[in-house]
């Protein structure tokens, strides 16, 4: 076996059976817990609000990955327009995999499924905005083929009223 083949084979050997599915209302509390562990802070209100919107928005995708019944990963994306001169595209809002289940290509599988949903809806490009200091996430996104797009995020403080 070549070194390249070993590199590819190693995570697969450790991979447990993982199933991907659209998130259901019953996944919400587990998803909030997992997201908090990954992000380091709670975004419970964000996820609850998102699940409310999801029922009425067919272009909002929340995918979950389960292994042995446990929720071990998620991906959140949406197809939407943007107020700049660009065609409608898919947006990746969040991707996360439980630490104990990383290096098993779960995030890659989630992204592949999300991109497939985008393609099925006629979208040809996907974009995302990430923390410039999150080198791990940026490295993952680049490893699957993403690179810098034509937009730059700018910000400023507007002060308190």
């Amino acid at each position, binding site marked *: 076996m070549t*070194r390249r083949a070993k590199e590819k084979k190693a995570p697969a050997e450790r991979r447990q059976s993982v199933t991907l599915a659209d998130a259901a209302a019953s996944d919400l509390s587990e998803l909030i817990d997992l997201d908090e562990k990954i992000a380091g802070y709670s975004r419970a209100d964000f996820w609850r609000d998102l699940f409310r919107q999801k029922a009425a928005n067919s272009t909002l995708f929340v995918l979950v990955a389960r292994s042995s019944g446990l929720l071990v990963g998620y991906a959140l994306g949406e197809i939407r327009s943007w107020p700049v001169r660009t065609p409608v595209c898919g947006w990746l809002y969040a991707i996360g995999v439980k630490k104990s289940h990383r290096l098993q290509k779960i995030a890659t599988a989630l992204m592949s499924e999300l991109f497939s949903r985008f393609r099925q809806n006629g979208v040809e490009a996907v974009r995302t905005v990430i923390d*410039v200091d999150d*080198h791990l996430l*940026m*490295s993952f996104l*680049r*490893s699957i*083929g993403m690179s810098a797009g034509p937009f730059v995020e700018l910000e400023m403080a507007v002060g308190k009223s």
Partner: protein
Amino acid sequence: MKLQQATRYAIWAVIELASRPDEQIRAQELAQTYRISQTHLVRILHALTKAKIVNSARGPGGGFSFCGDAKRLTLYDIICLFETGWPKEENQDLQAGNALTNELARVLHEVDRLTSATLRSVTVRTIINNAERSSISRRRTATDLAP
């Protein structure tokens, strides 16, 4: 981004060696492939050997091979070995000065931060995989356009 010649040669050598993981490649072949000075390249390969990124084997059938972790080794890691002033200290440009020099330093820091983040996120494996993807995509396009 302007990199020193040695840094560019080091990146080329590492990527070429990592893309051919089961081969011992002679410095002469690498130098010919990239049309660069063999003497200069050998010095760079020895620096990479010292950094445990490359292995060297003497004798017939000998040469250089990649021995690092392509999924972990980033462009930033290679650049830090060859560029002076890397890794850049946080706020290195922020010296006591007036408002104008401070604002200029802030802008330069913004550029450095983005550059550093980009280089830290691109691994040798990513470069190789993306090159393979582009090559497959170009071949498909050529096939599609063929009469």
